[in-house]
């Protein structure tokens, strides 16, 4: 399973997790829903040990389990049920794949040309949105933070340059300096919490604080499969497994740099998702609709 995940590097971790779970479902030889559920839970536990950001894996698998339960409620005979699950699972997955393009399209109303945008780290969905806007011949300027510790910002800069979008890489510490010259901030998210806050690459919280201080809009582009039922109140509340990779957890965490941080909903203006443009309060509503 690890290997599948590794070959799918271009895919977001959450999507990869869902894909792996679909494979498990396909190959599973279980006879009852209960057994199948247990097998999936085992598979999720293995996925969690892999050395990549776990936030999206968590939300993806959580959603997948819920999806299994919802399907199981609909039909009775197990064999038939499994067929339906696979069938629905595939359309579900296809729809998740589409969601990035839907977001890119919805985000286009913010990138109509002439703006200066600040973004953090590398986000596939932000990249897709900017790509779409650039294809529509909209001229805008992007500042990207270098984003320590993995300097993923550099990769983003390269991607944007390839698309012919004027962009500048800045130091993480220059966030405050550059904020006054941008029109708004646009970031992705690894996970969206029930409170309407986000879990994202370390430095996002700082960027949101800077944006708030200078009254700049802070927009988050996130697919709905990243919505999770967690409710952290601050950064210390965040589970260690979100903050560190599995291998980092084996060592003393006090000596390690956290990889993600939590940005509270007060600092976020709007979410641009595949189901529409939503205020942070709407996240809880969507999750309630799903789990009630």
């Amino acid at each position, binding site marked *: 399973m690890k290997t599948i995940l590794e070959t799918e590097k271009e895919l977001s971790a959450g999507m990869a997790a869902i894909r792996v779970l679909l494979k498990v479902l396909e190959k599973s030889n279980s006879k009852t829903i209960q057994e199948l559920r247990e097998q999936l839970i085992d598979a999720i536990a293995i996925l969690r040990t892999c050395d990549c950001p776990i936030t999206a894996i968590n939300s993806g698998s959580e959603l997948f389990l819920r999806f299994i339960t919802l399907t199981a409620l609909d039909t009775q005979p197990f064999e038939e049920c499994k067929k339906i699950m696979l069938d629905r699972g595939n359309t579900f997955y296809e729809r998740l794949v589409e969601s990035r393009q839907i977001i890119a399209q919805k985000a286009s*109303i913010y990138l109509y040309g002439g703006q200066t945008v600040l973004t953090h780290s590398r986000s596939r969905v932000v990249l897709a949105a900017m790509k779409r806007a650039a294809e529509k011949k909209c001229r805008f300027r992007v500042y990207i933070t270098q984003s320590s510790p993995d300097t993923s910002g550099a990769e983003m800069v390269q991607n944007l340059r390839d698309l012919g979008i004027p962009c500048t890489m800045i130091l993480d510490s220059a966030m405050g300096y550059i904020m006054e010259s941008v029109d708004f901030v646009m970031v992705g998210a690894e996970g969206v919490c029930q409170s309407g806050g986000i879990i994202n690459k370390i430095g996002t919280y700082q960027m949101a604080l800077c944006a708030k201080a200078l009254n700049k809009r802070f927009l988050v582009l996130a697919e709905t499969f990243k919505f999770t039922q967690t409710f952290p109140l601050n950064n210390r509340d965040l589970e260690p497994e979100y903050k560190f990779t599995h291998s980092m957890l084996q060592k003393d965490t006090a000596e390690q740099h956290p990889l993600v941080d939590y940005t509270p909903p007060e600092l976020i203006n709007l979410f641009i998702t595949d189901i529409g443009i939503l205020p942070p309060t709407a996240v809880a509503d969507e999750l309630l609709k799903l789990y009630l």
Partner: protein
Amino acid sequence: MATSDSQLNSSSPTNDENDFKINKSVAHFAKELSNASYRSHKSASEVVFRTVASLKDVIMNDQWTTAKELIDLIHMNGDHLMEADPSETCTSNMIKRILHIIREEYIEDLESKTVEKDTSNSLKKTMTSERRTKDIDYSKIVPTLKTSIIDHINEFVTELETCKENIIQQAKQHLHANEIIMTLGYSKLVEDFLKKAAETRTFEVIVAAGVPLLEGHDMASNLSKANIQTTLISDAAIFAMMSRVNKVIIGTNAVMASGGLRAYTGSHTLALAANYYSIPVIVLVPLYKLCPMEKDAFEANNYFHKVMAPTQGIVNPDDASLADRCTIINPVFDYVPPELVTLFISDRGGNAPSYFYRYISELYHPADHNLNL
């Protein structure tokens, strides 16, 4: 989404000349809308009723057989209306509401009244439903469609007729004895709201005149005639007077999807002053003013702002030569961000700005949010 619909509209090979002729009543109304003197005197509710009436005429009297054809027809007639006055949001809102009614009735009639009416997207639907809202086939013939659409529109018109009254009825819940209320410019709805509350309690109203049109003068005179203690101030005195105010109550031209306002110029100043003293800002808004688009979607087309002639309230016509020497900008609207609004009072009760996205998913179909996209 909307793109595919409008593309089909313009490039469809079956595009017969007769099929795509602008309806007479739509053309008539569009002509009036594009007339400047009508524009400056019309009220939003009048525009709303006339848009719905003319689109109803399209549904009743024009030739169509399937919902798809009807949607295209409404799109085309709607475009004609919107072009007549692009800055008027109520027309486009009503077009989108009618489109939503058509889609809803079509699905309901097609599946003989068993499915849920909710056409909005949600995370749960992404997971459970096999059918996607956006690729529903609208080209099946449903014989009962016309009558059910007309019935639904009649219901909708009744809702529109009562919505103002519903807002005014809430006045007593929000206004208390001996309060000081501040408002800006003129809004018939705010006037009636205050008058309704004045039937049972006494309070004081401070009216900011509202340059450039100075419609606050009418407001002040109407309120004082109703025996409400009224003070008229200039816009420049808003901040100075704010400290003694208990509530700010204003009307608005439109509400954006995020809960931001497109309101009469000076409203942002007023809201900021209120915010400084932590005074609640209450906005009265009939739901037909709720626009499913974001401010940015308008800005891309430069339709958000509207400017008037400098001689309308900024410079004296005798000093018109001043305009040769400097630039004079006379905007009609302000954008007020949702954080500055405490409460919206609509015909369905009081709501926080963050709640409006829910009304949007309830009242509009996702494919219709932005007709120009």
